[in-house]
């Protein structure tokens, strides 16, 4: 029996597949040798590149501690900083909007699009826009939304979702992309030359940058003291989206904020080095307002949409709040043995991998997502590489506990107790009592060794892929006694 979840405030499906199907999807992914090969290769490549960026362990330790400190400091002042950011952006001429749910965020942006009679929105990379299913919401209202990051463009053309937060099309081979371009882009012949493929994408998208009515982007860091939106990118599409169209809309989660401009220096450095193993990205774009009197280009209007969507729930709990330290580098997935084997799509959530396992329950509720935290060996690699030192393994254990504990009043999370099973809970309670009392435990182990032949051969999930467990013929304590 599961706990009745509180109603999610948004009626729209945020997951693009049901998390209930997670086991079947993971099974399929593990049995796909092509997928495993491409992810293994890509993750090995990214791990080696990251390692090469941190030859000096002391520098890495110091920078991680500083980055963690900045993120925790920012979160400790979050409501104050949001108000400061709003005041400074407003002073700079940027319109600030607030949205609690994906529906609210989409409605705000659709309203802006309608006011400008927009036909085409050209998009820079934004995982928050994926989180709220922005493209679907716009298309349903008759407004085109076109991805312009090369990886995102490929994924959208293929009718798919990103499989990695930094490298969205990492699951596709160049041959698959070549076939896709030849099929979907008029006048394009098959070529699997990467330079030629990029040239094709460039030509298609340049026309769109020129003609789009609105540009949409995410935000990497929002600086409260100056009212500045910072964007990290290599391609230049982010600059195009935020510079060429008459209107720029930026969307971000409420947590992506720092107080001081100088706080972005260490965060930017550790972000690019952790993400793709680059010393620096090609562009760091700092936007502090729309076109001013005298300016010759830039958007005439700039909007920022601040999205909650479950983040305030994570914020309310001191331990879960650490989830919000994330700067979305993707290093946790690059180093995750589970992600490497199943790829990003199997998770069925916008954010895959370790960060997805700890953030998705806040965005979607535990009812839909409680299995995610169990898809981990708790090896600890994610926590070790995290540039802002989020204790991801600890949080996974916490989420397992939240999902499996008996429903109670004032839960920390929507869907608390979603995986609660009274029978299993009873067995564990008995085990805990047995284990806590030496005399009963001795008696139990004495009986278990004597009657080991009675152990059932079928042990539910355990024997699905393993030989049955059986107590040893002699107890450890007896063997130790013999040695003395």
């Amino acid at each position, binding site marked *: 029996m599961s706990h009745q979840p509180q109603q999610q405030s948004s009626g729209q499906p945020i997951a693009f597949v049901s998390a209930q199907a997670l086991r079947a999807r993971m099974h399929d992914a593990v049995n796909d040798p092509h997928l495993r090969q491409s992810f293994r290769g890509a993750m090995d490549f990214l791990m080696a590149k990251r390692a090469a960026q941190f030859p000096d362990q002391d520098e890495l330790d110091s920078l991680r501690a500083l980055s963690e400190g900045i993120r925790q400091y920012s979160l400790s002042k979050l*409501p104050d900083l*949001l108000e400061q950011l709003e005041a400074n952006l407003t002073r700079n001429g940027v319109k600030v909007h607030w949205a*609690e749910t994906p529906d609210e965020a989409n409605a705000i942006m659709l309203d802006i699009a309608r006011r400008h009679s927009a036909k085409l929105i050209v998009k820079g990379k934004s995982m928050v826009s994926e989180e709220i299913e922005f493209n679907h919401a716009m298309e349903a209202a008759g407004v085109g939304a076109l991805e312009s990051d090369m990886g995102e463009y490929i994924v959208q053309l293929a009718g798919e979702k990103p499989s990695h937060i930094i490298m969205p099309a990492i699951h596709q081979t160049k041959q698959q992309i070549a076939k896709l371009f030849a099929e979907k882009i008029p006048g394009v012949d098959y070529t699997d030359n990467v330079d030629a493929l*990029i040239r094709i994408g460039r030509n298609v998208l340049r026309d769109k940058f020129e003609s789009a009515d609105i540009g949409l982007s995410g935000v990497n860091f929002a600086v409260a003291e100056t009212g500045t939106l910072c964007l990290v990118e290599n*391609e230049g599409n982010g600059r195009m989206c935020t510079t060429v169209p008459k209107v720029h809309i930026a969307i971000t989660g409420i947590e992506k904020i720092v107080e001081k401009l100088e706080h972005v220096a260490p965060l930017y450095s550790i972000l690019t080095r952790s993400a793709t193993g680059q010393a620096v990205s090609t562009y760091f774009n*700092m936007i502090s307002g729309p076109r001013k009197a005298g300016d010759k280009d830039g958007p005439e209007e700039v909007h920022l949409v601040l999205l909650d969507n479950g983040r305030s729930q994570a914020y309310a709990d001191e331990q879960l709040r650490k989830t919000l330290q994330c700067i979305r580098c993707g290093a946790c997935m690059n180093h995750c043995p589970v992600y490497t084997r199943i790829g990003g799509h199997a998770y069925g959530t916008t954010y895959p991998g370790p960060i997805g396992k700890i953030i998705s329950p806040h965005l979607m509720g535990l009812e839909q997502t409680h299995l995610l935290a169990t898809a981990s060996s708790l090896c600890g690699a994610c926590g070790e590489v995290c540039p802002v030192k989020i204790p991801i393994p600890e949080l996974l254990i916490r989420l397992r506990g939240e999902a499996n504990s008996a429903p109670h009043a004032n839960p920390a999370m929507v869907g608390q107790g979603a995986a609660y099973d009274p029978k299993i809970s009873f067995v564990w309670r008995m085990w805990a009592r047995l284990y806590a009392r030496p005399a009963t435990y001795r008696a139990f182990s004495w009986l278990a060794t004597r009657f080991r032949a009675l152990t059932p051969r079928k042990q539910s999930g355990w024997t699905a892929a393993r030989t049955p467990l059986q107590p040893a013929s002699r107890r450890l304590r007896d063997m130790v006694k013999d040695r003395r």
Partner: protein
Amino acid sequence: MSARDRILTKLRAAQPAQPNAMPDLDAHYTPRVRGESKAERLARFRTGIESFHAEVHISSEADWPALLARLCADKQVATMLYGADTPAGQRLDQATFPATTLRPWSGQVEELKADLFHRVDAGFTQTRGAIAETGTLMLWSSEAEPRTLSLVPPIHFALLDADTIQPTFFDVLRTENWAAGLPTNALLISGPSKTADIQQTLAYGAHGPKELVVIVINAEGDAQ
């Protein structure tokens, strides 16, 4: 109650009574100060930005316009857009550019958008400075040098004064006190536009310039 008020109320209810102590950035950066000479900073900048596929040419205050003209001819730049109302822009003379039409930016972007996207081969800008640690140029947009000048044309020529190269981005933010007043758009640029989104294969000229060419002046002597 508005969404804004509901979000802020929820956060305020959970906010720690005391904020954390302000992070100590100096504790990280001060022990790592290199104390480089100007020449060493220039060398490090150059190694960095060349590793990102940018071209670097050392010239002088007197000679750079002629070098730029020669580079334009070599790269078959038929039209180059630039900001005329800058100290560097005023040094450009059509007479020294036999192979290239110099076009000063004039008017709002809407008036020259089609040309900018389809007929301009190169854009020329000054730079505010550079960062040695990462091989990065700094550009501040201005009335004279709009944002798209360094973005849309396939080649970006950038003029850099070696005296303005700083060790790190942190040093820049501190010593130049950027927090006191930023332009509409401040940019860090490290090489031409690129992507590795297809099978981790690096390709240049994704959406922005395919080539970044840096001309360095005042490379000699000590920093002022």
